[in-house]
């Protein structure tokens, strides 16, 4: 099953490579990994999307916790409700009126925004769960997709439970 692990780590150089190195050294899956500073400048927050059996996920949690730079972590998919979001920018061929209309229509359905328009292309911004972004890609004609870039998932728990110090 897919899990989203959120963690707070010391904002030290090399902290990212410790996490990445752990995943490669132990052969764990890593589907996406995002990291950015937080409101507390000494901390970064990382979101890792991974998958594996329950035993492997348990090991991943423990091994991450064992890293000296990791201050706190939570598997937001494990305990209760959470919100997951990913950002995608997708550049598509839009070189006929027909296509332009169809793409615009699809973007509206998916609550996407067209950020850039040229005579032949659109850049569309889409935000949602990974599966929604996948669905949008499917809805496009594969031959028209020029480029896609996805941020990787981030997430947060619902309600009062928080990942903070």
């Amino acid at each position: 099953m897919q899990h989203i692990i959120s963690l707070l780590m010391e904002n030290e150089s090399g902290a990212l490579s410790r996490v990445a190195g752990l995943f490669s050294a132990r052969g764990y899956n890593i589907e996406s990994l995002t990291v950015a500073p937080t409101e507390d400048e000494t901390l970064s927050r990382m979101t890792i999307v991974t998958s594996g059996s329950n035993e492997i996920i348990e090991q991943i949690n423990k091994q991450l916790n064992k890293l000296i730079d990791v201050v706190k972590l939570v598997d937001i998919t494990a305990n209760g409700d959470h919100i997951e979001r990913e950002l995608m920018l997708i550049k598509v061929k839009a070189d006929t009126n027909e296509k332009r209309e169809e793409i615009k229509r699809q973007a509206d359905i998916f609550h996407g925004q067209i950020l850039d328009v040229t005579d032949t292309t659109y850049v569309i911004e889409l935000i949602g769960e990974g599966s929604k972004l996948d669905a949008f890609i499917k809805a496009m004609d594969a031959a028209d997709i020029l480029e896609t870039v996805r941020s990787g998932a981030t997430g947060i728990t619902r309600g009062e439970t928080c990942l903070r110090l």
Partner: protein
Amino acid sequence: MELSGDDIVTQFLKDEGVEYVFGYPGGAVLHIYDALFRQDAVKHILVRHEQGATHAADGYARSTGKPGVVLVTSGPGATNAVTGIATAYMDSIPLVVLTGQVTSQFIGSDAFQEVDSVGITRPCVKHNFLVKDVKDLASTLKKAFYVATTGRPGPVVVDIPKDITDPNIKIPYEYPKSMELRSYNPVLEVIPTQIEKAVDALLSAKRPIIYSGGGSVLGNASEELRTFTRQLGYPITQTLMGLGAYPEPDPLNVGMLGMHGTYEANMAMHECDVLLAVGARFDDRVTGDVKQFCPNATIIHIDIDPASISKNVQVDIPLVGEVKHVLKELSKTVTATKRKPDEKALNSWWDKIKDWASKDCLRYDRNSALIKPQFVVEKLYEVTGGDAFVTSDVGQHQMFAAQFYKFNEPRRWINSGGLGTMGFGLPAAIGTQLGNPEQTVACVTGEASIQMCLQELSTALQYSTPIKVVNLNNRYMGMVRQWQEFFYESRYSQSYINALPDFMKLAEAYGHVGMRIDKPEDVEGALKEAFAMKDRLVFMDFITDQKENVYPMIAAGKGHHEMHERELA
């Protein structure tokens, strides 16, 4: 006090109570070496190769329980140290390794003798640091010692760019007495309800066994292990890393387990109904095929490292905490319950174990005209009164030493169990001897292993460490040859070393005493003569049976009940 970075290093080490630094100089650490020259509180041991420095510091740490300290230069100094760092990492040994680094402004420019030491060592350290400001030097060193020695111990590297130790830049220095790392809180109190569950399982057992590992040694839990085991009267088996935490000559001890463990220990593991693992990590050399491991047992596991729990084998009752503390709690709770072990079941369990033991699985041909390696270790045990520190290398000789030297105390048996590093034995013996100057130190080695860090014979002379080297010279990489005999139809591909040196002359060339022994009847006399030379390193080259094998043996990936045994005529 105002100090420059180089003096901060030496002053800090002194304040931290460091006795020895094992090292080798070079450009990036020359400021620190100059600072060492200016003081005499911290003694520097000049090795002959940086691998030797790490192994010597490691032997010092294993035998004394104090952290080992290493100082090497950047680039090749650091890369040479990596094998020793990885060795310490695999066996959870506390080391603090200071590596010089090129001047900060040159980092990343492929400067002379630059390597990314933090990057190279990352997968084989508990943690590592790059010092970016001299103001952080003392606190970083403190953190390094703290991380290395607390929780599950391990090596920590501190990479120090040359400008950080610039003698011309002075800053205020104060020894940081304590420190806190918000992301690292290693001391865990075991959960009381878990203790109760464990005690209930243990007292309900019909076929219990205690399986104790390196954690009992590292956690200084020998006393508690003895008390608890005797309180229950349960059989105990120890891993290669755990030997001596429980005295081996004791009647409750059923010997080492695992690939070359005793028949009785492995069979008892296979048939037990309750397993208490104490500071052990279910290594594949211990478990064999995990699918067939202790198939009927409720597994209780004491470990300080939560990540060790259910890593290789699913655990029923985890007890996370310091081994010493957890064992004390177990003991207390057993006493308080007033419940007793099931005596009837226990008696018939012991009968079964004694039956297995009667196979005498470690037997070997005692009438051979050739020197049997087992015989040498038995005599070594007798001649040293079972009281020596014994380091070893990797191979058959290591297994013979583990099987035939009966350790009474923890920290006496010093070997590279996790990484299996040939070359470990001699430098580790030097560190052990320096840490235990009044004690007897023997290094049981093989003619292939000893050549991997042979240069340290020179270090041993410089610091007058009167080690006794017991070279079990079978003219083969015996362990490799054994696997080739068993699994490759005796095709001895590259396991025979042609053109061996004359070890006796070699020892003499290094300024030591050399001996060659090639007859069984001379073994005891030679050992007595050697150990009588209290202030000399004696290198005993025992010419042993070339084709002797280590038995019993569980082939890799097999179950505990599928042992190969020796067939004797």
